[in-house]
């Protein structure tokens, strides 16, 4: 049987835990002890009050060390935030399509190899495209998505290159602007994409 450390130290248990509020507020606990104290904390109002006060003291000590960062830091942080934000709104939009009440799925082998899959929501006018096993393209080419229907053939976005090697999955891509009887097609286009397809689709997925 393990002997609790507080007995080894000759402290009473409650006293031992309480007195960790100081080191805790200074981030001076090793991970295991930090975790133990964090389990103790919710049931100890006195500890919570002490941690709150000590954290305020620690923050003031921190503020005293203020030093202007290089100006370039701001641009990097704001750029990261912009990228995270864009990814977050894409994620939310993708989740909305996948969970839509009218979501339907279509999947087919492509003439280039591999399988293309879309989940479509007509009410959300969007599809999420993904694929497995598509050939990796040279950097001069790209897979491009198209909405194809009585409203015409419209560019619907580019697919990031599949990861090399099996299964070569492409990350889910959201495409918006789905209307009426649209199907979703994929072509291979020059890098950067085009506004109208220049090659025969490797797959056309009909949605019904």
């Amino acid at each position, binding site marked *: 049987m393990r002997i609790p450390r507080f007995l080894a130290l*000759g402290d009473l248990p409650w006293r031992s835990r309480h*007195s960790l509020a*100081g080191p805790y507020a*200074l981030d001076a606990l090793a991970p295991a002890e930090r975790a133990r104290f964090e389990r103790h904390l919710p049931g100890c109002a006195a500890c919570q009050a002490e941690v709150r006060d000590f954290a305020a003291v620690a923050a003031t000590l*921190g503020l005293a060390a203020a030093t202007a960062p290089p100006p370039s830091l701001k641009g990097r942080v*704001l750029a990261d935030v912009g990228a995270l934000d864009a990814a977050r709104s894409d994620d939310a939009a993708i989740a909305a399509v996948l969970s839509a009440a009218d979501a339907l799925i279509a999947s087919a082998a492509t003439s280039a190899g591999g399988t293309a899959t879309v989940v479509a929501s007509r009410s959300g006018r969007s599809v999420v495209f993904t694929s497995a096993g598509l050939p990796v393209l040279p950097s001069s080419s790209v897979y491009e998505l198209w909405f194809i229907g009585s409203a015409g053939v419209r560019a619907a976005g580019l697919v990031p290159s599949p990861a090399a090697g099996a299964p070569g999955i492409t990350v889910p891509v959201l495409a918006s602007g789905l209307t009426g009887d649209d199907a979703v097609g994929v072509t291979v286009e020059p890098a950067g994409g085009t506004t109208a397809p220049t090659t025969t689709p490797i797959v056309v997925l009909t949605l019904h």
Partner: protein
Amino acid sequence: MESRQAPDPVSPPGPDLDQLLTLVGRGDQAAFETVYDRTAAAVFGLVLRVLRDAAQSEEVAQEALLEVWRTAGRFDPERGSASAWVMTIAHRRAVDRVRSEQAAADREARVASAAPPPPGDEVAEAVESSLEAERVRRCLDGLSGPQRESIVLAYYSGFTYPQVATQLGLALGTVKSRIRDGLSRLRDCLGVGQ
């Protein structure tokens, strides 16, 4: 927890940092830019103080500020001030970096083999010429030597309290109580909390 004796230096007039964090939690990038302007020097300075390496500190400050962006929705004003919340993130990131470094063991050995640093020097290094720094210096000066050494080594150098005990040649329990007593005196002197 608002300071009673002096204005919170990262919360000048205008929307306060609490309100800005609430906006950031909803994805407001303009509000985040204001949060950056108000907190970046505090975040970078603290990280630099702990890591003592400008390039690494930029990296860690960047991570900390991004964590502020990602987790602002979880900020709870009931549990402390906005500036304390931001500084807690920055400090934790800095000590995580210090402790995960391959060189951490070397660094520890280096510091341990030297005599404990004269507290006056540590403190002098820690503070800048701002009013806030002056106030902190005055309050740190009011602590007993052992209280000050324990707190400075733990907070500004990022050591765990057992590491502090080893360096100062003291029992764990002694360091714990020095930290606690010292923080209580600082709380009263700085007029934060309660």
